[in-house]
């Protein structure tokens, strides 16, 4: 054996290629010690504050205001003032230019926002960088173009603005949900009072700086932070003309009750328990990717997550094997690491809820699988989880977990798949995986859900309407249809 041969032999066989940490730099964003409410273009000193943290480390990031009745009053007042004082009568073409500016500013400052989003919300930087931020900017760009074309979207209906829109958004896609709400509202000539989620206020507060740079007239967008009490104050405010809410079905129902008889416009985008249906003729490896993307994207904190996996029994075994193997390659950890696939659970409360439901699943007799992974000691973490042998009656197959937990059920025929998939009070989204075109359309027609992803999952686009059937809410966001909730018609 030559020397070189021996050298080759001595070189240890590469058994473990550990990726070195690749953290995105935090320096790109600066966080103030304390934030107030953004009202009438200025910062209101909050009467009460609370701490907002990084869920991946429990590190305190800033103190933010707990919005009180008087804060909401002032915000609504500012919005009403701005509505009356020029915004609603501004030509659509001018409104459009403000929105285009915002879109561009978000693109320019994307890295800063992405880092802050991951810090405050716990989602992997690759998602905030590649999904949340590009889509947020795209939403503003899309709706900017509609601002001066509303009469073409609604011919013969003479559309006009509703007035002041109260908007309450969730913590799973903080900036993206803000853009879903604010962009169409402004395009239609409304002014806005928006409350970001209690646990994720920081990108909404940073967004106020974008509004400053865009020179948006004061009062057109007002941001009040706080918990459910602040949200309730917005919902109940008599001078708010329209409420847009994204969040849990429970709160959505309460809001609908609250608004009964007020004549206020309402759109609700609520919970889901989506069926992701896999047929035995599907492109298997891509289906596995779709399943993983469907439930582990954003730690499963997605209202349209594919949380119920229906697998045709004839392919169940190899598919589940593939899925489990794929789970072992998921990288769980520091949200700011560019290689992280699954980040932190958004809050201690959410983690408790996930743990409770997972415990219920184990107790009910489902078989649990979690890939080996070391979770950080500090912060809120939950390993990607798959339950097999799940019965339709188990809580994990019925209730929205809103975490990285997949329930696997099986079916035999397309008819049965549709029946089981629709057997839920929810109806937000569904997935179908098959190579047979006619079956895709047959399934898509029968699934009672607002979005059907065929041979893909969790795709979003500003031009594509999104929203639920049944208890998943009503109204659509995105596309031409997403304008309608923000308009009145003089028909």
């Amino acid at each position, binding site marked *: 054996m*030559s020397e*070189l*041969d021996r*050298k*080759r032999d001595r*070189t240890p*066989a*590469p*058994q*473990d*290629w*550990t*990726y*070195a*940490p*690749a953290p995105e730099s935090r320096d790109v964003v600066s966080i103030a010690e304390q934030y107030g409410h953004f009202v009438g273009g200025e910062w209101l000193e909050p009467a009460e504050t609370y701490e907002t943290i990084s869920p991946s480390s429990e590190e305190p990031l800033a103190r933010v205001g707990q919005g009180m009745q008087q804060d909401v009053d002032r915000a609504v007042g500012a919005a009403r003032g701005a509505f009356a004082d020029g915004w609603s009568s501004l030509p659509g073409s001018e409104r459009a230019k403000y929105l285009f500016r915002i879109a561009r500013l978000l693109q320019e400052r994307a890295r800063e926002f992405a880092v802050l989003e991951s810090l405050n919300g716990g989602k992997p930087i*690759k998602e905030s960088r*590649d999904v949340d931020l590009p889509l947020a900017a795209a939403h503003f760009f899309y709706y900017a173009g509609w601002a001066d074309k509303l009469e073409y979207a609604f011919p013969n209906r003479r559309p006009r603005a509703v007035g002041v829109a109260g908007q309450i958004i969730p913590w799973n896609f903080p900036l993206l949900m803000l853009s879903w709400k604010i962009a169409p509202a402004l395009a239609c000539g409304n002014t806005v009072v928006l409350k970001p989620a209690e646990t994720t206020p920081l990108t909404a507060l940073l967004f106020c700086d974008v509004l400053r740079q865009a020179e948006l007239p004061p009062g057109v967008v007002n941001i009040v932070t706080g918990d459910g009490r602040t949200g309730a104050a917005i919902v109940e405010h008599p001078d708010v003309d329209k409420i847009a809410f994204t969040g849990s079905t429970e709160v959505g129902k309460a809001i609908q009750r609250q608004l009964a008889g007020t004549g206020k416009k309402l759109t609700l985008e609520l919970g889901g328990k989506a069926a992701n249906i896999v047929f*035995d*003729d599907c*492109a*298997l*490896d*891509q289906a596995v*990717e*779709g399943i993983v993307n469907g439930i582990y994207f954003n730690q499963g904190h997605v209202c349209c997550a594919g949380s119920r996996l229906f697998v045709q029994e*004839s*392919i169940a075994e*190899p598919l589940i*094997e593939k899925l489990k*193997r794929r789970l072992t*390659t998921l990288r769980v950890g520091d949200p700011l690491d*560019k*290689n992280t696939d699954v980040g932190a659970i958004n809050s201690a409360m959410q983690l408790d809820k996930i743990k409770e439901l997972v415990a219920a699943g184990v107790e009910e007799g489902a078989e649990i699988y979690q890939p080996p992974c070391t979770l950080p000691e500090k912060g809120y973490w939950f390993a990607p989880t798959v339950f097999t042998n799940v019965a339709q009656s188990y809580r994990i197959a019925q209730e929205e977990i809103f975490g990285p937990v997949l329930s696997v059920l099986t079916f035999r025929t397309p008819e049965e798949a549709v029946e089981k998939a629709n057997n839920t009070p929810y109806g937000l989204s569904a997935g179908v995986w098959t*190579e047979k075109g006619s079956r895709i359309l047959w399934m898509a027609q029968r699934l009672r859900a607002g979005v059907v992803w065929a*041979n*893909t999952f969790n795709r979003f686009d500003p031009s594509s309407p999104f929203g639920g059937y049944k208890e998943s809410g009503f109204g659509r966001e995105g596309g031409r249809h997403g304008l309608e909730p923000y308009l009145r018609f003089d028909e």
Partner: protein
Amino acid sequence: MAQAPVVPTGFELPLEPRLPRIGSVDAVALEERAASLAKRSIKKDAKVFALELAIRVTDLTTLEGADTPGKVAALSSKAIRPDPSDPSIPSCAAICVYPNLVPTARERLQGTGVKVAAVATGFPSGQYPTAIKVADVRSAVELGADEIDMVIDRGAFLSGRYAKVYDEVVRVKEACGDAHLKVILETGELGTYDNVRRATLLAIAGGADFVKTSTGKISPAATLPVSLCMLETVRDVHEETGRRVGFKAAGGIRQAKQAIQHLVLVHETLGPDWLTPDLYRLGASSLLNDILMQLRKERTGRYQGPDYFTLD
């Protein structure tokens, strides 16, 4: 694949939807997955590891009409010691040449661990009678090739004569004797990922030790999605049968960054077991110097210029 019991109809059916099945591949989702893996950020130690590994799995290649003994001898020396100024840099896996140049390479590589690979079977088109292809392989092996890189008959494949493709792989494998067989699919001519998957399975069924993307003569060659598609097929075969088939990405890989992306692909698809020259190869010519530059940059902290690396 499970088969039906023998029936008097004269044919057999695969009856179970088990792996490895021919199945189909969704192009959009495959490309998205490949693109997302390409975004892995490989830094510091992990990068040095990857760059060294890339060298160890490289088949340093020259496949020109103008190849001469001088050129091949120089390249062989480069394969043995890629960076004369740094003896810690490992050797390449092999030299890949036309059969006529095998003796030159053989002579220069004698006593080293670097293998000699010869392209054969009417490379690159494969449009020759089977007997000539087999003879081509035999002669290459006799000339001293350790490894044979054959091409499949794409004409036969695209006209649906899969049996001919399969049969040729079987016969070439026989002709190889102890030489390792890499089967080149020339994916750039196959048109769809469905075809890539099908051809991969055909090659493996025919006895390939390695499946290889491309000749390097056609673009596109070893794209990330095509590699991923083949790796997933290799994985299916392994999971169902336990058989480990090697994979070689060749053609169009010129930069260290691309090489690392390919390594990430195999790492996250087949796992660390495949991160060895026994099961993974990169076919390249100009890639090596870029890797050397990156490695020296990692070691010195200074960006490098081409004048400091040998052109061979």
